[in-house]
Every structure is written in C-alpha cells, then in structure tokens.
C-alpha cells in the first residue's frame, strides 16, 4: 500500500511527507536541521526542552516540532526571527542550569549542547549557575547521575521506566527543585544497564569513568597493561569518528589501543568462544540430567544477572555457571598467558573496552577472583575509549589495521555475534549441535550454522530447534523491558537468552550516542556480515580455544577460571 503523503512548506520550499509524521521527523528526513535535546526516537515525545520550536503560519504560539504532526498545507518556518529569539533563549536557559564540566566530560567532543551553542552563537555564561550544589547519585561502580549537569529533560527516567521497565529513577520535587533521584522503594534497584546514560543528551547520567585511572597506569613502568575489546565495539567505535554505521573496525581498534600505550591487545571474541564451549557443554549436561534446573538461562549480560539476583533469586540455579567472555579472557590472561609470557600475574593490568556500564560492576565481583586477583582490573566503555583517542588526537578513521596478539586468535564467527541479541543463543546452538553428536549418542546428526529464528530486533524471539533428536524450546529476550512474559511462561522453554539492552550489546549503555533503533539495526547487520565471512564460524572449531581449555583442565583451573556462582541481593541504600 502506498504511503499517504501530505504537502507542506518548510522555509519556503515545498515537501511531500508521510502523513502522521511530526514536523521534526519530516524536516530531518529532508535534511533540514532542527535542534533538539529531549527528543529521542526510542522514547515517547515529551516536548519539554522547547528547543525544537518552529513557527507555523496562522498559529498564535510557536510549536514544538517534535510534538506537532504535519498537516496538509502547513507552512513552517524553522529559523524566523521569532523562532530564533525563543529557541536561542531556551538553549541559553538550559545551558545556565547545566554546570559545565567540559574538560573531563567524556561527551565533550560530541556534546549536543556545545554544538547548539556554537551553531547559534549563544553566550553560555549569561546566568549564574543554580545547580552548583546538586548531588551525584552513584549506582555501584557502573553508572552515576550528576544533578549539577542535568537539564531536566527526563530521558533517563523514560529509558529506565518505559524502555527497561525498572522504574529505578524518578523525578522528585517540582519547579526548580525538581531532581532526578533513585526511588525510595527498596523493592526496586538499579541493574546498571546504563540506558539512562545512553539517552542523556548532556552526560548528566553517565558511566562512572575509569579512563583517568587507565591513563595513569599506562604510564606506570612496573605494570603490564593489556587491553581486551568486546565483539560489539568493533562495529560501533567508528561512529565516534564519522565512519558509517556498521563499519567494521577490528584492525583499527587494535592499532588505536596500541597507540594509547597498551602493550598487548586481545580480542574478546576469543573468549566468547570459550564461553560458548562452557555454556554449550552445560546445556547438554542439563538436558541429560532429569534433576537439572530447567530452563537454562544465559548469564553473560551482567545487568540481567543483577536483575535476576535482585528480582528473581529463585532463578539463580537456572543461570548457566559459565562466566562471561570478559571475565573468561581476564582469567586466561592472568593464568595461561602469564605462564606463557613468564610474567607475574600481579603485574598485569587487564583493561576491558566494553559496550556496557554493567561490566564495570561485574569486574568488581569478588567471587570472580582467580588466585586472589580480579580477572579484569578496569572497564572502559566504547565512549570512554573514543574520548581517550580524541583527547590524544588519534584520528581513528585514518589508522592502519593491525592484528590482536597472536597468542589468542580473533575468535570464530559465533563469537562476534555475541554482540547482538540472539547471538549468544545462536553460538551455543551451533556448538551444542556438534557436541551432541560427538559421543554418537544422538540418533541423527546434522550440521547447522545459521539460526535465523533467533535473530533480529523483536522483543521476544521464540523457536523450537531440533538438536540430536530432541526438541529444544528456546526464547531470546531482547531488552529487559520485555522479560515479564517469558518469566511468566518459564516452563515453556529449555534455554533462554537474556540481554538487558535492546538489540543486545550493540545497544549497550556504554555505546556511542546516539543509539536508535535504526542505528542498532545497522550495527547488528555488520556483526552478521563479519560472521558470514569468517573462516571459522563455530566455537568448537577454534583450536586455540580447545588448547586453552585443555591447559586449564590440566592445571585444575577449569572451575576457578570458567565458572561462577550467584547470590541473592538486597538494596542497601
């Protein structure tokens, strides 16, 4: 069916635009710039910042373009004297409530507020700041909300409530006393997903940054500082430097990390293959054990793990005991790699570059220590990584490609899709398929690589997969906000993947801003493209992984490096 169009005029030029669009959408589709701060395609229109105002002929007041639907014959002015005056003043008023912390702000190189101030030549110090004494709320080691930077747009609250359905953040007080704060409800707690940060236009909600500690350590001659980067980072980091959405940058990422001073750079794809092996084995064991807790549920998303520990401790026995890829690799680096390199594990500093804020929390879980050491010492987000590069004038787009340290390879195609919702499930299925046939117990065997039924951006993806003659009922939860219907029907499934962030890690709370449905889709497509052209596409075909696993077994390190346990959590403050 053809789309119904309406004719409108914007700044004297005629356009034919889809019916039902807002003026803002119509303008942007036609490459007409309109500023916005509180507008985000992921969220309901709130129209509270009043920065996207336009003049509509025949209307007394100015209209917010985000909340005004186009009508046939509408004549719109986006930059008339009236618009200029009101829009610029609103930007100025917003700037006055935002205490600038630009020198150390990770958003400084792509800050919407600064861009608008430059574009419209707005004086940013006209009013004395009124939020100087606002509190900073810190959520574990992961996320924080700095009230002094908040511009009251409420995107964080909507991301937390309407998208993630956690309802941890609230608007408290009214008027100028209004503040974003954690709920007093002790039955609600932050899961550290960082969607608040991802949707904040001014870095008031942001990761608790670690780039400064990392910077210091990189100068410390007594330390061996190594980096490991997550599957999804390779398809998102380029966006920070103007590369197209979905551009793969594995080689450039390695070069960039080396340029920052990391002696060794490892690809978490390698350990994602380890995770798949551990998880697939466990799945098959559980399937054969009639007493085993079913369904089995993935545990590589630390925000989901926190959710389960707080909201559904009864489900903890269902979570796979497998550690996550970053913890696997950290553990392997401080055991296997340390041994091979003949270095003291205590001297090694492992820095993860992650799409995620909750990974910062995961890294500080004491139960994950191996021989008394944290597998991962610091986690920086994709945004922090980009900030460090920009700060050091490293032009990412121009970098040559290089390869990660050869001792571990770049992982299989199954590893790279960990970055997408459904990817962990698909990787495990590829391997479980093969492992089930390994001991010839299966009635019939077949090789299968692509599991399209668990891919895509649907909220819940369900499938029944034939695995060695058994019917495996699987579900993929794409975004914690959609989890309730799966939790209500647990008995319907044997294996469930949960990713707290919509789209999976490519939509993680530490990813570049903006992240929207359109951008998530591009990033996901990029991951599946990489997978498709990989020589090795299954974790169990990764020989180096098998070698490492064998070594760990021989050293009796399998359990401490590969497995973990969970505990019920309550809110303490």
């Amino acid at each position, binding site marked *: 069916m053809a789309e119904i169009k309406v004719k409108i005029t914007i700044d004297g030029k005629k356009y034919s635009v889809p019916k039902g669009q807002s003026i803002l959408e119509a303008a942007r589709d036609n490459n007409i710039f309109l500023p916005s701060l509180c507008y985000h395609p992921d969220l309901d229109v709130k129209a509270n910042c*009043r920065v996207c105002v336009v003049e509509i002929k025949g209307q007394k007041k100015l209209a917010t373009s985000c909340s005004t639907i186009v009508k046939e014959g509408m004549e719109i002015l986006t930059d008339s004297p*009236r618009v200029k005056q009101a829009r610029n003043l*609103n930007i100025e008023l917003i700037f006055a409530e935002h205490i600038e912390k630009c020198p150390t702000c990770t958003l400084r190189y792509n800050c919407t507020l600064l861009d608008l101030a430059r574009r419209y030549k707005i004086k940013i110090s006209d009013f004395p700041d009124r939020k100087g004494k606002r509190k900073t709320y810190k959520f574990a080691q992961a996320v924080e909300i700095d009230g002094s930077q908040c511009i009251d747009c409420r995107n964080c609250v909507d991301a937390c409530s309407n998208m993630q359905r956690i309802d941890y953040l609230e608007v408290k007080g009214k008027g100028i006393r209004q503040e974003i704060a954690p709920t007093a409800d002790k039955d609600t707690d932050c899961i550290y997903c960082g969607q608040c940060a991802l949707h904040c236009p001014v870095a008031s909600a942001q990761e608790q940054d670690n780039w400064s500690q990392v910077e210091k350590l990189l100068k410390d001659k007594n330390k061996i500082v190594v980096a490991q980067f997550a599957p999804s980072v390779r398809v998102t980091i380029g966006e920070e430097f103007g590369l197209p959405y979905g551009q793969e940058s594995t080689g450039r990422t390695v070069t960039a990390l080396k340029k920052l001073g990391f002696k060794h750079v490892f690809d978490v794809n390698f350990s994602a293959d380890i995770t798949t092996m551990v998880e697939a084995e466990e799945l098959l064991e559980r399937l054969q054990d009639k007493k085993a807790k079913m369904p089995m549920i993935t545990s590589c998303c630390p925000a989901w793990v926190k959710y389960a520990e707080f909201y559904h401790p009864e489900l903890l026995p269902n979570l796979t005991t497998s550690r996550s890829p970053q913890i696997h690799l950290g553990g392997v680096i401080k055991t296997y790699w340390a041994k091979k390199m003949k270095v003291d594990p205590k001297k090694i500093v492992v820095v993860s570059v992650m799409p995620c804020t909750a990974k910062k929390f995961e890294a500080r879980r004491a139960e994950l220590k191996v021989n008394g050491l944290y597998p991962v010492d610091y986690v920086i987000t994709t945004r922090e990584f980009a900030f460090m590069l920009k700060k050091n004038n490293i032009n990412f787009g121009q970098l040559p490609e290089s390869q990660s340290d050869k001792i571990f390879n770049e992982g299989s195609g199954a590893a790279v899709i960990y970055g997408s919702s459904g990817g962990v499930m698909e990787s495990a299925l590829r391997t479980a398929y093969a492992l089930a046939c390994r001991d010839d117990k299966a009635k019939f065997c077949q090789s299968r690589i692509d599991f399209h039924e668990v891919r895509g951006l649907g909220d819940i993806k369900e499938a029944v997969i034939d695995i060695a003659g058994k019917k495996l009922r699987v579900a993929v939860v794409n975004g914690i906000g959609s989890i309730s219907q799966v939790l209500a029907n647990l008995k319907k499934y044997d294996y469930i993947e949960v990713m707290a962030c919509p789209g999976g890690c490519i939509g993680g709370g530490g990813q570049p801003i903006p992240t929207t449905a359109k951008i998530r889709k591009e990033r996901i497509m990029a991951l599946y493209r990489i997978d498709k052209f990989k020589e090795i596409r299954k974790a169990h075909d990764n020989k180096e992984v098998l070698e490492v696993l064998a070594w760990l077994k021989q050293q009796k390190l399998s359990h401490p490096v590969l497995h973990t346990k969970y505990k019920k959590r309550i809110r303490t403050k």
Partner: protein
Amino acid sequence: MDILTKIKQANLVGRGGASFPTALKWEAVKQADSLAKYVVINAAEGEPGVKKDGYILEHYADRVVDGARLAVEYLGATRCYLFINPKYYEVYRPRIMKAVKAAKLEKKFGFFVKPHQAGYIGGEETAILNALEGKKIEPRLKPPFPTINGLWDEPTLINNVETLYNVSLVDKGEFHNERFYTINGAVKKKGVYAFPADWTIEKVLRQSGNYPNFPFFVQVGGDASGDVLNQKQLKVPASGAASITVYDFKKHDSAKLLRYWLKFFQAESCGQCTPCREGTYRLNRILEKKKVDWKMFQAILTDLSETSFCALGASVPVPIWSYFKNILNNKNVSL
C-alpha cells in the same frame, strides 16, 4: 430534548476559566468509542482570588451533583470523581454526600482530594488526570485531549463545578446565563456574587456596592494570571474565572506586586518545560539585581508566552504586561 441539545441551545461555556463550549466536550466524549468513560468534576480551585467553586459547593452542592449525574447518565460513564480542594472537602463533604445519595449516584461517585503539594497546576485538567492516576502532578502533552484519551486512557469529561451547576439549571430550564464573581481587594464587601455573565466589570462592582471612590485598577480572572485593567477599561465583561480584585492605585507598590506574581509563578511551576521552570526563576533573579536587565526580562516573558508547555507558563506575562501597559502606560517601568 436531550441534555446535549439543551446545553447547545443555552450556549453554555466552561466556567473554569477557558470558556470552552461545554457541548463540544460532551459531544466528543459521547462519540468516543469505549467501554469505559469517566466524568471528573474539577473543584481544585487553586487560583488566588477565586473562591466561587467553594461558594457553589457551600450553597448548591445538590445542583453540582445533579449536573454530574446528568453527565454520567448521558455519557454512560463508568465512574465520576470529584477532584476537590482539601479545604472544601473538610467543610462540604457531608452536604456533597447527601446530594450524591439523593441523586442515587453513590455507586459511581468518588472523592479525590487534591494533594497538598499539587498547588496551582493541580487544577489543570490533565494534571488532575495524572493526580488521579498517581502520577506526577503536571500537565500532559495535548493532543490527545482528555475527551478522547483521558483518565486511564479512556474518554473523560472534565467540567468545572460551576459548569455542572449550570448544566443542572439548563436541564430544568432555570438557566439565565448568570455567573459567580469573586470580588476581592480594596473593597468594602468582599465576597462571591451571582450576576448576569454579560454584565460589565464596572456594573458588577457598582451593583455589588464595591465601586471604589478612589483611583484604582483591577485584576480580572485571578490574582495571579488575570488581566490588569485601569478604570477606563471596565466596560467589558469579566474574563476567565471572573474574579475582580481591586487595587488602590496610590497605595499599591509596583515592586511588591511584580514580585508577588513572579514568586507565585516560580513556586507553582511544575518544572516540566524550560521556559517556565528556568524562566520564572531567572525573572525573579533579574528583579533582585540593583540594575534590572529589562531587555532580558522582556525577552523571557516573550519566550514564556511563545513556547511554554501549558497555560500556566503562557499566562506569566499576562498580568505583568497588562500592568505595564494599562497602569504604567509602559512608562516609568522601574522599581
């Protein structure tokens, strides 16, 4: 003749302040296709200087409830809420309940006492819906309008106390287009008076025995958001919620008045939109300065008028501009 036709013929308009044709609201809710519909009686009365809803509840609770009953029956509403100012609830609850029982409306009727922190904005109709739903008390984005998408997303009729009182009169053929005037300030006989709606402000003041014998000016339609008029401008009917507050021209203090308005608006701003939250705050700070930046002061007022989210923000310039223009002749604007 059904009630809607009667309302149409009477040309009844809302008495909450916006003067929106009552029939249009009723028709929209009637036509909306939904299993659940709601009626909300707005008795929040938060505008300073307006006391007529309290007066009506004191004297004509039965009429108000009768108007609500007519709405409930005509619309087939599921439930009817009286969103009421806590002061009125304390005093008038018994007589309202008596009227509810007499109208056989108990099963569908519920009180909802306006929370104390709700303030001025707690009388805005979509803010009332938020209050009823337990959400933050502040206006909603419109459209959708409450008549289509109101309480719990269902079609909802929100009418002011006086409007429903008039509906009852219309139904019985007793409506003579009168309205309730609250008269305050430098007058001898403060109070609420019922007079024809088309009377001029001057006539209302004279007939109530309140016309001053000294130079004065008035604020009409609320002590905060109302228009300020000089003595020569009183040949028009009272607008808004029809309050008339008289100021003694010689005794009044410009700076005090200006600060009163601006402090009120800053305190009552819900905080949702930039111009109102930040603008009212900045206006107050500007006035505190020794050298007042009138250019910026005016720019912020224009901004409020042009880009506010709701009528509260947009009404901030109303008293100030009309005071400057009508009383100070736009001259000597200094403190």
